[in-house]
Structures are given as C-alpha cells and as structure tokens.
C-alpha cells in the first residue's frame, strides 16, 4: 500500500492569506469546487474551518470516554480483588467489600486513564511526533505558526491539476500561491 503508486513530485499548491476569514472563505470555496484533499493551516484554531472543509471526526472524545470507563472499572476491580481476595483485612469492622470507600480511587483512575489517553491519543491520531512534513517546504510557511493562514490543495486530489488549481486559488484573493514539492525520499 505504502509504495503502491509513484508519487507526484508536487505535494500540492498552497495559497497564503493574512486573515482567518479569508482562509475560511477559501476553504468553503475549495470544498464547493469539489476538492477533497484540502488542508488548512492556521496559527490558532479558527472556528468553522473543519466544517468549511467538510470534515468531521469524533474519534478523540470516544477514545477518551472509553479509556475513562476502562480506568474506572480497572480501579474498582483492583480494589475489590485486593480487599476481598488478595489481602482481606478487618479494618474498623467494615465489610471486606466496602465499596463506598473505593470511590475516590475509582475516580482518580478514571481521570488518570482518560487524561493520559486524551494527550497521547491526540498526538497519535495527529501523527505526531513527526520529524518532517512536505508542507514545511511551502514558501513563507514559518509564518503559519505566527500570523499567516494557508490553504493547501494536495496533488493526491482527483480534481488536482497544476494549472487549473493554481487558477482556482488565485481567484480566491490569496496573498500568494505557490507549489510545494514532495520530499525526495518519499518519491
């Protein structure tokens, strides 16, 4: 799968904007024009951008939820097993299965597993850490973490055509449009 098709030497075409609303507008237009492999880059989360790209995902919340449940059940199982089975002791005359006093640890285990999953899971789904990405080769892209907004239509898109797509992006009122090469090693 990974090396199935020879890759296009062009990674994509990138349009640069100075304002988040321009990027939002451009993203909407690209989706409307039928482009599917579009990615937007911004120095802060721009609300409505993923909707404009027609992209929806709720993996992260589900993952965190399931991890939390697993943490809670795991904590409860451990406590019950320890208190009833592995190390039964009479503590102040309480029953061995004294579940109310297990609640704090159940809660902490829930939060711990959910929180660790939230951070590590988000990074993993985002494919981070990743030493390099072709987009970093885009002109002026160091400003993407500062004050500029970028829209990239990738060459893997079915509708991608260098001259057509360039013309399309130039029609979006971008500050500049440039092409980004794929990394040599990836070709």
């Amino acid at each position, binding site marked *: 799968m990974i090396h199935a098709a020879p890759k296009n030497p062009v990674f994509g075409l990138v349009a640069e904007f100075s304002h988040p609303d321009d990027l939002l507008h451009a993203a909407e237009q690209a989706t409307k024009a039928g482009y599917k492999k579009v990615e937007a880059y911004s120095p802060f989360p721009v609300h409505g*951008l993923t909707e404009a790209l027609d992209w929806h995902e709720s993996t992260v919340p589900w993952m965190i939820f399931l991890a939390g449940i697993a943490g809670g059940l795991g904590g409860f199982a451990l406590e019950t097993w320890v208190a009833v089975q592995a190390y039964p002791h009479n503590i102040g005359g309480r029953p061995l299965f004294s579940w109310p006093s297990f609640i*704090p640890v159940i809660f902490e285990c829930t939060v711990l597993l959910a929180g660790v999953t939230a951070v590590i899971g988000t990074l993993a789904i985002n494919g981070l850490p990743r030493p390099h990405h072709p*987009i970093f080769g885009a002109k002026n892209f160091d400003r993407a973490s500062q004050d500029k907004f970028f829209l990239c239509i990738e060459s893997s898109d079915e509708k991608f055509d260098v001259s057509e797509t360039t013309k399309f992006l130039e029609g979006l009122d971008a500050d500049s449009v440039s092409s980004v090469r794929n990394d040599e090693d990836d070709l």
Partner: protein
Amino acid sequence: MPSHTGYQDNLIDGQHNYETITDRIGTVVLDQSKFNPNSEVGKKWINAFLFGFLGVNVLMLVIGWLVYQGIGIWGNNQPSAWGFDIINFVWWIGIGHAGTLISAILLLMRQKWRMSINRFAEAMTIFAVMCAGLFPLLHTGRPWAAYWLFPYPNWLAMWPNFRSPLVWDVFAVSTYFTISLLFWALGLIPDLATLRDRAKSKIAKILYGFAAMGWNGSAKHWHRYEQAYLILGGLSTPLVLSVHSIVSFDFAVSLLPGWHTTVFPPYFVAGAVFAGFAMVLTFAIPVRKWYKLEDFITMRHIDWMCKIMLATGLIVCYGYGCELFYAYYSGSPDEKFMIMNRMAGPYGWSYVLLIVCNLAIPQILWSPKMRQNLAVVWMVSQAVSIGMWLERFVIIPVSLHRDFLPSSWGMYVPTWADFSMFFGTIGLFFFLMFLFLRFLPMISIFEMRELYHRDKEAPSKNSHKHAHHHEPAAVTAGGDDQ
C-alpha cells in the same frame, strides 16, 4: 463599557496584531540578551534565580542529613506526629490549585480572560505539586521504599488498604501531577512550534523543534487538539476539587477534635484557591512589569483575580465560623476545649494572626481603588499566603498537641531542619519558576492570537480588510520597548 475603576475595559491593551503579540511574548525567551546580568531586567532575573538556587542547595543539604539521620531531626513528636511536613504539603498543594482553576474551570465557563494567565499559573501548579510531594515522600522515613505506597505485585503478597484516606491521597496527588503536566505540555505544543519558527539560533531551533514534535497547525490537528483540550478541562475540574477534598479527608476521617468535621472538603478547596491566587498575584505583578507584558496581563486581570481572592477568602472565613459553631452546638466537651485551646491556648497567637491575615486584611480588596494599587494587592497576597500557612498550622499541630487525655498532652516546636526545609522548597519553587520564565513562553501565544481575533476583529468583520493592515510598530500603552 466604561469602567468606574479607571482601567481600560480590555483583555488586551494597546495596539496589537498577530505579529506584535507573537513578538512581545516570544521575544522574552528567544532574545536571551534580556537575561544578560548587565541589563536591568537581567539583574532582577539573576537575583531571583540565585535566591532559588540557594534554596535548592539548602534543600539538598537538609534532605541529605534527613535521609542519613532520620526524621528525628524534625520537631515531630508524640502527640504531634504531624508538623511542618504536613503543613507544608497541604500549603503547597493548595497553591497549585489556582493554576488548575484558571486553566480548567474558567475554560469550561468560557472566561476569556484566563488566556493570558493560564500558562503561567499551570507552571506554578506543577512546581507547587513537586514541592508538596517532597514532604510526604520524606515523611515516610524511607523515601527509597516510597513505591510501596502503590499497588504492585510483590513477594510479601502485601497490598495497600484502599479504605485509608492516606492511600486515596497517593492516588489523588499522583494523578493530579500527571494530568497537570500533560495538560500543560499539550497547551505548549503550538507555542513551541512558534518558537521553532522564530528562533534565530540553531540550538534553539533544534530544541524547540524537537519539543514541538512537528506541529504544523493544520485544521484537523487543531480540531482534535481542541476536543482533547476541552475534555481535559472537563476532567481536571472535578479532579482539582477531588484532590483537596481527599487531602482534607486525611484529617476529617479521623476522630480528632478539630479535624473531624464535614465542612473540611469545601473549606479546604476554597482555601486552596484563595492561597493559589495569592501566589499567582505574587509572581504576576512583578513579572508583567519586568517583561513589559502589561498589555496582556492587564489591570482588569489583576482586578478579577483580587475579586476571586476576596470571594474564596470569605468562604474560608465561613469555614472558621462553622468550626466555632460546631464546637458550641455539638455539646462535646472535647470539641469545646479544642476551640478554646486554639484561641487562647499556648498557640493562641497563631489563631489571632490567622484571623488578621485571612479575614481582616483581605477586606481591603472590597475597594476598587485598592484593587488597582499593585503595591497593596501584592502586600495583601503576602498576607494571604502567610495566613493560609498559619491555617494549616492551627489545624495540624495545634489540634494534635492537646487531645482527649491531658496525660498525653505535649508541645510542638519545629527545629532548624523544619524551617530550612520549608525555605528550601520555596527556593525550589523560585528556581523552577524562573527557569520556566527564561525558556518557555509564560503566556499562551496562540490563545492570545485567538483572543485578539475574537475580541478585536470580530466586531468589525466586514471591514477586516482594512483592520488587519496595522503596522507592527504600533504604539503600546505599556511603555517603550527597550
């Protein structure tokens, strides 16, 4: 909205745009010439850092002697088996709570003003929990065997007693530390990418690049990032309430007069936030001036932090009132004696000072004018920090030293080791805080950009084409740049 207190009703003062915001905050760490000891601000940094370094050295010496000699070098005795170690543990943990309140609870309440103080306060949380953790760790007497506190399969076939609040504490504090650290690290990633892209020196580029993990700000990444961040906020909110509640269970679940009350969990949590905001103000007031960040940590922020401090302080004082009422209404002679002993016994001075520091002095903050006087606010914060330390002193050794049986009464006298270890943790806190100020952005840059976008650009959405062509060299209200 014009304001009667005389400050601009802005969350970002001065003329700014994305570039100037990034520059103003990023420069503090990227332009290390600001830390040159020959410059005025560099001198301040080095002095604060050296103070911290001295404290760390004292701490290491005391810990070395403590591990060699045993905890007999502390003033703990029978009946006061808990002394400075637990006072300091609770005090430090409480200080950390303001950071989580700012980063998590205010996030859920969509309080935009949190954005310029959350990074800084979260760092404080982490360092405060580190200082706190040292005390119970060393109080075990054999810190090298501290892992016995965790449930793990062992050849003795022994397991922790999950019915004990002390075991809950282990889980609560270690979870709190882990989640706070992760929350903070997640928030830092986009800013580290900014620093990576702005760094001029090769070493800085490589190090920040490593830490940024290849963050490129794509819409999908931001989407998942925001989902995770918000849920972490939702998880941290009950977590922070649980941590100090569980810390208070260490006392409340026992039978000792002065400890055995149901008011403890809410009263401890409020006290934690009270002390935490005092510490945030203690650092924020000088640091915003040194690094010319008055445009981002504005007088409005100071004002609101003072109000939170005032409100939580009143809750704490309500707790003091409850304790008096319980003693009277319980009809129990031991409870009554405990309160009388607390107010008029050999440690009565500590209760009087506590009331002065936590009840009387913070009332100054009712005055809007006083909330705008940085010197006054800073002094009140010191009073609160001292007051909250005294509160734990009053609760712990003063309740312990005279309990049910007069034959087992005693006095608690802290030793040089207690004082130097407390000083040492203050040093450690300074040491870590000032290293943080030097190498990481103390204000969340991307959140400030977002705040700028929402606050300043959104109302003039139609005219943004003109609005965003401001020159970067805008005049700022905070004064000149150099």
